[in-house]
């Protein structure tokens, strides 16, 4: 199953690259630099998804003390941190030619940076506590608290005045006005990156189970 997910993700990423560089047209205002969107938006979406999964798995862990839920939260947080790092880096690279700066402390960028640091802290906390059950419990609490930042990140562009544009997708109460080829390229990349996330999490979760068995 994991192998199938891996091949599907690889095929999706190849199709996504073709869509982003060949099928999608050059954007009129920004030019070719807008093609960064096909990696920036999907990685941001996966970051939301990953930390949403951490939230749900943490609640399940605290309610049932399920080790599977704990492993899922751990794996999803780790993968989420990688994808958030890519989101921040690609956003910064996109920001320089369009805004004239690599970084600015506006609401969207700052809230994403806080999200990144909180989940890095989550992983550090897990690594610091030797007693497994106690580490899992503390991490679950932090996983729930940190998830409160996800809506803050998403709606920050509406709640505060920011340099960042409003969301390309998931707009509150409105359909996207994007041209069809650009929308198609974006959706295919969203699916491809989601498959890659599922593949990484499946592999990491299985690995965590094996590591725990070896230590038991």
């Amino acid at each position, binding site marked *: 199953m994991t192998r199938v997910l891996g091949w599907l993700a690889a095929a999706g990423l190849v199709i996504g690259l073709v869509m982003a560089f060949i099928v999608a047209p*050059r954007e009129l205002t920004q*030019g070719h*630099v807008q*093609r960064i969107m096909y*990696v920036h938006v999907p990685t941001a979406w996966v970051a939301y998804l990953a930390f949403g999964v951490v939230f749900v798995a943490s609640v399940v862990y605290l309610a049932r003390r399920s080790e599977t839920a704990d492993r899922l939260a751990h794996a999803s947080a780790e993968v989420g941190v990688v994808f958030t790092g*890519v989101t921040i*880096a*690609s956003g910064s690279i996109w920001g320089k030619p369009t805004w004239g700066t690599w970084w600015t402390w506006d609401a969207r960028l700052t809230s994403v940076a806080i999200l990144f640091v909180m989940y890095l802290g989550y992983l550090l906390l897990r690594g610091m506590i030797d007693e497994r059950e106690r580490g899992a419990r503390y991490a679950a609490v932090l996983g729930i608290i940190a998830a409160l930042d996800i809506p803050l990140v998403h709606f920050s562009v509406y709640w505060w005045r920011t340099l960042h544009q409003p969301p390309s997708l998931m707009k509150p109460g409105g359909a996207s006005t994007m041209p069809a080829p650009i929308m198609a390229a974006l959706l295919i990349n969203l699916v491809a990156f989601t498959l890659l996330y599922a593949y990484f999490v499946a592999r990491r979760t299985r*690995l965590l189970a*094996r590591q725990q068995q070896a230590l038991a």
Partner: protein
Amino acid sequence: MADNWSFVIAAYAIAAIALGGYWRRLARLERDVERRDARPRRPR
């Protein structure tokens, strides 16, 4: 606006390095676990 291809390439390259790096990390951790499993256990 200028097309800024270098920025596009940099963004995709960083994504490839980060995601490829994580994939390699998983492969290394799996190899470590397999090696540990294969090692004969010392009698106590």
